[in-house]
């Protein structure tokens, strides 16, 4: 399972990558939208965990980009603020019914969630 973690907060992305790698998964970090899209090309993730509010290209746009290239990739959003709502609603209207997790996400919960994902992801 290859997991791409996207967060403009470098520490969050990096620690999460470490947790994922420790749990035996392949993981990579990207700190902004365009870098994430480029990284996805080579990394070909099964799962993307992305922050929503980011400067420049936001998480929703980034994931839409990645989803277009990897339709089977599972997207998980996580966010710590209210402004997320509208962005997520917009995405939903465009047919992207992604799950949104609230920060801080307990690592155990996250790992459990990943374990529970359908096999194809």
């Amino acid at each position, binding site marked *: 399972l290859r997991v791409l973690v996207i967060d403009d907060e470098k520490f969050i992305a990096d620690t999460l990558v470490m947790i994922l790698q420790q749990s035996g998964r392949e993981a990579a970090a990207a700190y902004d939208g365009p870098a994430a899209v480029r990284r996805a090309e080579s990394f070909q993730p099964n799962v993307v965990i992305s922050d929503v509010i980011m400067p420049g290209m936001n998480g929703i746009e980034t994931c839409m980009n990645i989803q277009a290239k990897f339709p089977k990739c599972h997207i998980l959003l996580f966010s710590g603020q*209210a402004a997320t*709502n509208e962005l997520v609603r917009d995405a939903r209207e465009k047919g992207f019914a992604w799950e949104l997790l609230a920060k801080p996400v307990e*690592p155990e919960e996250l790992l459990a969630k990943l374990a529970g994902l359908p096999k194809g992801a």
Partner: protein
Amino acid sequence: MSLRLETVDPAISNLLEATSSLVSSLELSDVLGKILKLAELLLEADAYAVWGCKPQDTTWRVIYSAGLSAAYVNQKIETSSSEWTNLQPVIAEDVDWMPLVRDRREMYRNEGVKSFIAYPIWTSEGGMGTVTFYFHQRREMTPDVLQTGQLLANIANAAINSAEIHETQKSLRQAAQRAAERSEFLAHASNLLASSLDYNTTLTQFVQLAVPKIADWCAVSVVQANRIQRIAAAHSDPAKLQLANEYSKKFPPNLNDRTGTSQVIREGKPQLVPIVTDEMLKQAIPNDEQYRILSQLGMHSVLIVPLISRGTTLGALTLVMAESARVLGTEDLEIAEALANRAAVAIDNSRLYEAMRESRNDEGRLAAIVESSDDAIVSKNLDGIISSWNKSAERLFGYSAEEAIGKHITLIIPQERRSEEDTIISRIRNGERVDHFETFRRPKDGTLIEVALTISPVRDSDGRIVGASKIARDITERRNAERALREGEERLRKTEKLAAAGQLAASLAHEINNPLSTVTNALYLLDSNSTLDNGARDLIGMARTELARMSRIVKQSLSYYRAGSTPKEVDVAAMVEESMQVFSAKFDRGAIHLTKRIDSAYPILGFADEIRQVVDNLLLNAIEAMPKGGPLSVWVHQSREWRSGRPGIRMTIADSGLGIPKEVFKSIFDPFFTTKEQKGTGLGLWVVRGIVAKHEGSIRVRSSVKKGKSGTVVSVLWPRSSQYDSEDRMESLLSFE
């Protein structure tokens, strides 16, 4: 004279007869010209002059002359010598040898006069004079010459006298005629002005009447609302009138103008300018266009008189001479003043009448206003007997006008407030007004109403105080309105506070949740590091526990700003049961006796986590409100929203704790409000309110701090289904039951 005529040449006598008939024509200039011709013919005189001296005067002047230079004619001679006044002719055959005229020799030489004869005459005014014949050559004064000269002098004297009398009579006749015309005009004008009280109309006719008899132009201006307004103007030529109207429209007079109508109105004194010169116009009117139009009007004589009535200047009457070339004088001033008087009285009367009519209308209007006023208006005499009672008084006090009028005002004054009436009446007697006096009155139904009274003295036409009028306003409604306004403002403040707090919460959430994520991850990684000893691992465990607690607080307080997922079916009853199970240990420890009644009910559509948070927060509040324990009731059942009737699940938690003091009660839903000092976040009920609002529910809190009955009851209605379309609806849907 006829005797002497017989000795004269028959040709001369014929001429003399012709002269007589000529003299009877009474046209002085004609006569004098003929006399000179005769003098030339009969006396061979070169010039002649009529000298005159007024009675009691010594200055002689030339009145009529022919054949003399201007310098000679213009000279004045001072003399009181009896030689000139002794009724004998003065004969000078040679002026150089005549002692009487020694001092005038130079004059005669200059004029080329060598000889003269002067015959004395009397003017019609009783003055003295001479008819003098002058000769350039030395003339021998034969008796013939002297007689002929006397004859001519007599004719001249007669002609002059009769012509003068004729002139006087003519001018007297003319003056009399003018006076008659003017008095006729004045009478006409007076009748006209008195014919109607509409002075706009009468003055228009009035100025037309004045033209051209009195002047070429006539205009009337009045002061209205501090502006000078020309209300009537007349001129015989409509084209010129239009030009004048155009002029006054373009250059309306200003009360502050230094000259003309404005000055007359301001000073209340007439202004007569007999001759208006071009220079005067140019100086008075610096504006080129204004000057151009004005000179086109061709005014050359102007008279402006103020319209004064009862000591007040109401306007001005302007008379202008133009085409007729007549010069306005003091005589015109008199008639203008007479006219102005009449016009002023007409304007004043008309205005008085207008004011009277208005005040009469006012009385009617006033009665209607009083009758239809929303305030109760009652009048009474100084003995307190009610004399009027309007519709609102009937409504407010319950007595009809028939019932109230004639009764004493104590009809509506409660027993314990009767003394107020004495105070009020004594103030009214002193002419004082009682303003906004708040008191109670007793309507017919026996209840008490709170009213604000304004009582003013009523005076008769002589100014004597004869009673009082009382305006009563039911202030219960006003008090309600004030309360509503206060509440509205408070609500607005609360909303603003909430919005500010919401922003703060949102940014706090962002700022706290991100570092929390990092630290959570880092501690997790550290915890799984196998190289750590047990002591370090314990410390990390502690840190992780505390961190989890921190996360919980943040979630608890700021969570409803969290991105929501889709609402799901929630069984509120089951959720309450579950929470009570979780808190059962706390209940036991706190000696809290739980009474629960959970009726099975349908699920609602909502957010389970958030509803659980509300349940938990409310239960925790209840537990904390009962430090000494006591009964706690929890009830969940199907119900309806009190106001809208929407079906839903009602959840009621009633503690028997300390209660919420009245002074802080209205703040309980404010963010950061807490009664628990350091223990609470101050965000619990604020979050509860937010979550309830998000679910379009309603919350009701009742509390008492009375000993033995203290406690708080919180009741939340969760609607069966909600729209969840916008977070913005939160505030508007929040209901304080």
